[in-house]
């Protein structure tokens, strides 16, 4: 079965019959985590770096923001038996428009927000496909932990 993660959404699974997918990331980030020992994996699709711009929206839709979504993704995986030290971490998305700079570059800011949190919490990124001007879709198979990235207009590639 295919579980679809919408925009500003998250899914975590330990069902080996499932794959989890999130479409069309653009400047958004698709954060994929997987613990191979217990075969628990999940994807978070967040849109913006920082929930401080609108606390009310962050309360209603915590998966919209990096700072409110990322901790929830990890905690939900822990509840299914995953452990931080075994976790594989993959990042996709964070694309930018040509000449998009500074604070307007939300793709880059989305990625930097994640890097900052990971640095603080000592989380390593196993692999990533971020930045550039392309639109990506990312998918994980729970049974194997295999991760595939598809760029609009091209085929799916295993990372």
């Amino acid at each position, binding site marked *: 079965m295919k579980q679809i993660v*919408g*925009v500003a959404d998250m899914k975590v699974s330990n069902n080996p019959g499932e794959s989890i997918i999130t479409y069309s990331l653009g400047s*958004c980030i698709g954060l994929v985590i997987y613990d191979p020992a217990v075969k628990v994996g999940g994807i978070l699709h967040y849109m913006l770096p920082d929930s401080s711009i609108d606390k009310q929206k962050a309360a209603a839709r915590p998966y919209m923001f990096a700072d409110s979504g990322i901790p929830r993704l990890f905690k939900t995986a822990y509840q299914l038996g995953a452990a931080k030290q075994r976790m594989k971490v993959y990042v996709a998305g964070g694309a930018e428009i*040509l*000449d998009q700079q500074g604070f*307007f570059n939300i793709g880059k800011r989305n990625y930097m927000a994640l890097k900052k949190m990971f640095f603080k919490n000592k989380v390593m990124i196993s692999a990533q496909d971020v930045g550039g001007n392309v639109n990506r879709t990312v998918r994980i198979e729970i049974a194997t932990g295999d991760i595939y990235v598809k760029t609009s207009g091209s085929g799916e590639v295993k990372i």
Partner: protein
Amino acid sequence: MISLQTLVAEVKNLQPIPAVAGQLLAVAEHPDSSMADIARVIQYDPVITAGVLRTCNSAYFGMKNPVESIKDAVNLLGIDQVIELALLKSGSQALGGSQKGYGMDEGDMWRYSVSSAVLAKQVAVRLGLKGKNTIFTAALIKDMGKIVLEKYVADAAKKITDLVENQHFSFQEAEKKALGIDHAELGAMIAKIWKFSPRMVNIIRHHHLSDETKIADKQIAAVYLADCLSMMLGNGVGADGLAYRFKDQVMKHLGISAVDMSMIIADFGINMQEVETLLQMA
């Protein structure tokens, strides 16, 4: 290079956007029009009327009693919502297919177009701009040039990709260089042949703001911004991806800060269910 004659012939073969869209815009943007005037224009087209009523009766709007006429719909949802639904429905057939040359599967262009239109409405409301139905519609149909251009883009894919990836061209600049015309110019030509207003033709022509003197036109700037936001959100974005130019000076001119931009994205995230409902109109 493609001859203009060939393109005009191809445009004439397209399933056009129904004339009612142009009439509806003219009535909707006229200050003296009444609700009855607007309802009359919509009712004139049975396909659009049926589409609007079907969407009004979808679970999203949660109506207790079935909506059976445009008049009911106006009373229950308000005139603005009904105008938007009718404009969307009028574009759904033309924009519903696949555009393989742009790596867009069936429905991708429709997703991208509806997202752009919803974002354009948010931008227009946030900035208090005049002509919000025109802005909404322009954002919806701005990429229709791609419908005709896609097979030429497919034929020139190697050259276009090289220009974008290795020579710092935007996708639009690469189209122009490889084919002699880009999708914005062709879209404007289609709009003209389909007898849209000169205003609409102008917005479509300049929706990527390659001519920077157009920045002063707030309707064009708003549609441009909505297009940038739609690209960033990725919904229905094809192989051209985000390879278009971002212009800081547009944001300055519109008075849009990076925080405003984030707020518009957040609002869109909250309204995703509305967008999903609107997509069902195709």
